[in-house]
């Protein structure tokens, strides 16, 4: 891998968003992932989402672990601080960063090896704590960088490129996130940008632990017949429960929908998630229902996608800890040091 800068030539007629940024301003270095890698599509979706919702790139901190997925943050949001941490430990570093400055947007990018194998513990505990973040797992069921070993999300019975059958049960990260208390849980497919982009927009607006599991086929090692994380397999078995439209603020519904087919979620920041329900029986406000639905359809070999659960009034780690409204990293001696007189009193109490 070498470092490649993109030429900074902008077409004069490029569309700008409300902040005057073009889509190019949200890009990063040229990807060094394999041509056709699902991860690049997810990077593109992140870029599109950040552009769409007029984010200032420098107000985002992007953190990752180790692996192909964790390399991806180099390829988007070049104007953001990034942190490629150690394998499986992005969640703790992100948690610390979030505690230091609650005003930034935290984007955690990880993979199935990084989050479901070596980092399962940290993934779980960051969800439990309700860290305000967008946690995206680029899930291909395989270790790409080390050339094709199964990861912990590989389905039982799926076949590796070398013909080995996986005999271990898979970790379903969406099921875990639901059980552990994440307040925004979605699954999508890297090949379905129309579904993925608004899911990311909604997750960024969400003021709590938002988790998106994105099935992202590995063209080099896991896109063959017998794989359950290939483009073909996911397209055939994708069972979308809804499609969402994301609006910064409440806007009048202008399109005609069949009665009961739209579920509207107003998030704490005023943004609106309009869920076009593809399954009338699916309610994205029902955590337990979502867990059951997921298991039932998984048993049928279906990959359930969409916004599976959202709590419109989530709390987060800062509210649990009752931390100051201003970022802790802006506090200095006057706010932090009790001073010499207080120390004299402490000394007096220790005699």
């Amino acid at each position, binding site marked *: 891998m070498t470092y490649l800068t993109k030429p900074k030539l902008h077409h004069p007629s490029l569309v700008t968003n409300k902040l005057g940024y073009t889509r190019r301003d949200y890009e990063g270095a040229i990807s060094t992932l394999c041509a056709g890698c699902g991860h690049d599509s997810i990077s593109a979706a992140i870029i599109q989402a950040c552009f769409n919702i007029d984010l200032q790139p420098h107000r985002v901190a992007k953190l990752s672990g180790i692996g192909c997925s964790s390399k991806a943050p180099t390829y988007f949001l070049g*104007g953001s601080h990034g942190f490629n941490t150690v394998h499986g430990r992005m969640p703790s570093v992100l948690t610390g960063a979030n505690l230091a400055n609650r005003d930034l947007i935290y984007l955690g990018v990880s993979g199935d090896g990084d989050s479901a194998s070596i980092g399962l513990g940290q993934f779980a505990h960051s969800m439990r704590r309700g860290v305000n973040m967008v946690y995206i797992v680029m899930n291909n069921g395989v270790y790409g960088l080390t050339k094709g070993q199964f990861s912990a999300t590989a389905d039982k019975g799926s076949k590796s490129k070398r013909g080995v059958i996986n005999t271990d049960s898979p970790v379903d990260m969406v099921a875990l996130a639901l059980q552990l208390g994440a307040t925004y849980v979605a699954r999508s497919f890297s090949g379905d940008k129309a579904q993925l982009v608004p899911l990311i927009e909604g997750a960024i607006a969400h003021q709590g632990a938002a988790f998106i599991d994105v099935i992202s086929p590995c063209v080099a090692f896991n896109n063959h017949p017998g794989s359950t994380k290939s483009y073909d397999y996911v397209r055939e078995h994708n069972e979308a429960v809804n499609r969402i439209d994301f609006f910064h603020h409440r806007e009048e519904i202008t399109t005609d929908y069949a009665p009961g087919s739209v579920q509207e979620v107003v998030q704490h920041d005023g943004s609106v998630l309009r869920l076009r329900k593809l399954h009338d029986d699916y309610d994205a406000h029902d955590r337990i229902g979502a867990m059951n639905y997921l298991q039932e359809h998984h048993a049928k070999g279906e990959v359930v996608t969409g916004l599976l659960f959202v709590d419109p009034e989530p709390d987060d780690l800062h509210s649990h800890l009752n931390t100051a409204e201003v970022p802790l990293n802006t506090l200095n001696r006057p706010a932090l040091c009790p001073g010499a007189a207080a120390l004299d009193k402490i000394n007096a109490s220790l005699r």
Partner: protein
Amino acid sequence: MKKISAINDFVVKFANVNGSGSASANELFARAILRMGVPVSPRNIFPSNIQGLPTWYEVRVNEAGYLGRRGGCDLMVAMNPQTWDADVKEIEPGGYLFYDSTRVLPKSKFRDDITVIGMPLTQITNEAYTDVRQRQLFKNIIYVGALSALLDMDPKAVEQLFGEQYKGKEKLIDSNLKALHMGRDYAFANLNCGEMGLKVKPANNVGKKIFIEGNNAAALGCVYGGATVCAWYPITPSSSLAEAFQKHCSKYRVDAVTGKNNFAIIQAEDELASIGIVIGAGWNGARSFTATSGPGISLMTEFIGLAYFAEIPATIINVQRGGPSTGMPTRTQQADILSCAYASNGDTKHVLLFPEDPKECFDFAAEALDLADRLQTPIFVMTDLDIGMNTRLCEPLEWKEGREYDRGKVMTAEELEAGKDFGRYLDVDGDGIPYRTYPGTHAKRGAYFTRGTTKDRYARYSEEGPVYVDNMERLVKKFETAKNLVPLPLTRKAQRASKFGVLYFGSTSPAMNEALDVFDEEGIHVDAMRIRAFPFHQSIMDFIAAHDHVFVVEQNRDAQLRSMLLTEGNLNAAKVIPVLHYDGTPITARFIVSAINDQMALFNVTPLKKVAQ
């Protein structure tokens, strides 16, 4: 039999059962002596257990102010039948045994070279109290009362302590006073107080000194030093540090107007997450720390390498215990020196600070937070169980009014706007320390990618050999810079010029101070230097060069600090002699004097005359 006779210079040891409420009664005893102006150094010797196993509380009473463990026991307060035999055996010949004589014990259970003082404690408490818990708790106070009579202690000192401890709870004061005097009265009426040769006499040797645990002092240092994020995982003997930080923050760090906390504390799921959180917060510009012990350091090692290589401030307080592995969780050692100094795969070196007592735990904790920001690297405060979990007499804590935090080299939005060149790993000042930016500083400039992989001066990924070497060399230069920023060593010269020197550090200090006085008295001349930090300052190497033989006193098996001195100073190994104490008990002056005397005897051997041919 020659009875031990001593005023203000003896060791009392309490043998108790864990969880019986004895700890607070024993501490009351120690504090009462302090109030009489006589220095004491108590030590808890406790098992890794909550209830039922044997525990001891050893109080050294020493008017001269020697606070190291002395060794031996002059008066055993034997309250635990489980350990009776060993406890009785431990008493110095001519010493004293105080015990509960409710149940008659055969003569074979005693020794005839000690004075035995029996008091029917259980019977007395059972007659006075009906409630089971009261019986247990007040029995402890009753024996403190009896001891105060036997040792000629001032009851007012204890009474005063009750008054302070139970302020506003008059009922508790009264009931404790009653128990105390029940013990005193019984002793005066029924025990022969005159046969007790150990006495406490009022003195004036405590002065302004304070009595505090190292962990509590280190926690205060973190509050004063401006730590806002603390992440930790419970592990003996460090847990009380994070808990003390929580307590002090609740008092001093809650905004009076908003009621919001100017701190965040996470009890993480393990030490990996603890250090990850600390590093994340440090990366993002908040002062952060963790407190742990040896096994925790083992788990944190990968992350420590990341913080070294990516250059992120982190403060790690290691309250050392006996290793390796789970080792001796409730015993003390200085055995993590190497594992901290060179933690991580690859070539790394880390800054270590060695506090000698709670006062320096406070100072060095605050200092570590400054150094971490200044040097953009992990800083270790290497305390241990002996300092951390025992209440120790030390100088009062000091904070210079108006002292500002050193936040190190942080490039601001204004500087970036003005077009100042920003290279995250660019050495602009020649000290090896680059500038950093906090995330979110400037809309267009100053963003970079932090990584554990190799990179160039502008934080761009590169595996080019020369680029890698350039960065590694700069890190060495930064470590050189650290030499003059860390606490300098302190020297104590012998009365006469000597070819012998001794190096020591950390909790060995009180025992070494006493040993040096012994050497002075015996006319043995040894220059001493207390090392307070790694990297080693040049003056340490000069000290070694100026002596023929240098002892390095450590509380570990493998002479870890000596190994570092040899490597870092490129020294002749024969010249540097290890003096090692590592059985888990705190080192004593007796041990140091004896070990060094033995070695010196070897050097002072007069060579045999050559036999005439």
